[in-house]
């Protein structure tokens, strides 16, 4: 029988709770306040070619895929 590696869902549950709480509490940021948000280092992904290459390795070498983080990169910063 295979030994089992235990993986608990609490980290994601905690982060979702933070997300919901933070979203409900956030303020509207005006265009002139977006200088830091518009910096290339704040984009997701910062370097798409590197991200694609690394994710390809992860998909091939691991048993799960999806929601890898390349999506959802918008923030109205452009």
């Amino acid at each position: 029988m295979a030994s089992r590696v235990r993986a608990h869902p609490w980290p994601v549950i905690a982060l979702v709770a933070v997300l919901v709480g933070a979203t409900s509490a956030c303020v509207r940021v005006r265009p002139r306040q977006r200088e830091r948000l518009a910096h290339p280092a704040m984009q997701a992904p910062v370097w798409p070619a590197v991200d694609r290459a690394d994710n390809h390795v992860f998909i091939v070498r691991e048993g799960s895929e999806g929601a890898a983080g390349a999506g959802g990169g918008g923030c109205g910063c452009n």
Partner: protein
Amino acid sequence: MRLYVDDDHVTVVSPAVAATAEADDATSLTIDATADAISSASIDVLTSASPIEVSELRVEAGARVARAVGRRLELRGQGRGSHEADYAAWRLGGGAGVELADRNLSLDLDYQLGLDRAGDATDATFSRRRTEHAVTLAASQVLDPRTVLDGIVEARRADGYHASPYRRVPVVDPAWPLPTWVDEVTPEVRTSVAALVRARRALGAAWFVAASQRLYVDDWDVTSHTTIVDVRHQPGEGWLLGATARGYVQDGAAFYRRAYEVGDDGALPVERTRDRTLGPMRSAFASLTVDRTLWRGDALDPAGGVHLVVAAGALAWWFPDAALQARRLALVTTASLVQAF
């Protein structure tokens, strides 16, 4: 250009090219192509090493078109194809993105259809198909002038052949001195959900950090967690440095066994695999990236001009169930020249 080498004598050299053109003020077209030149010591190195030397070429190409509708809505579609001697894959998809709340909230919904055909380099008559549907919902919320929060949920259902014709599974019968080697058999349907939460924050004028946590579950009982922390630093004009740390832990599929035995009635296990990526595993990845602006076209656009981006990463896997090769190491290096207008 990407170079992958690991300690099982696998080398993958992957030249790639991508270009984006603006057809008009509202429409952009992106095309890309890449090739993987693979040389290895086995057909399926990670999962069932054999002494056979393999050289293989995989070619992949894709196109994506996006069109802005009004000021806040984007529609997009994309297609992608991948071909190698014994495997072909097609991906077709489309989606929409909208910005709300004075551009403080963006929502994206995408669908992708996947069509795969697996062949066997040693048997021209072998052909198995798999169809995949994936739906992704993503949201990004600006929290303050320095912080963005992202949430992504992706649901996926794959129907068809998931096994490999090259993987033969040893099944032990206590009445026989040697195991019987049989075909790999896995369930026909795999349904999964992955969810990611990520925070991006600017720290001061030159430091940036992003952290994400992903949970994956599927009906094969595979559960995984992925934690990623990215730190970016701009030490001066024309330089951007990045460091990434990634940890991954995975629980094995319900039917995965370190070793299979025939049942009391002499029957073979209905589902059996020798794919170590379906067993319990952990991995750790760390990388450094250097982005050097060689030429800046527009002084107001820090992402414009010509950039040289070099990234080097080390990846290690641990397989607690494996008697042999319980730890594996790989190096991944990417160098790219990016010209933005």
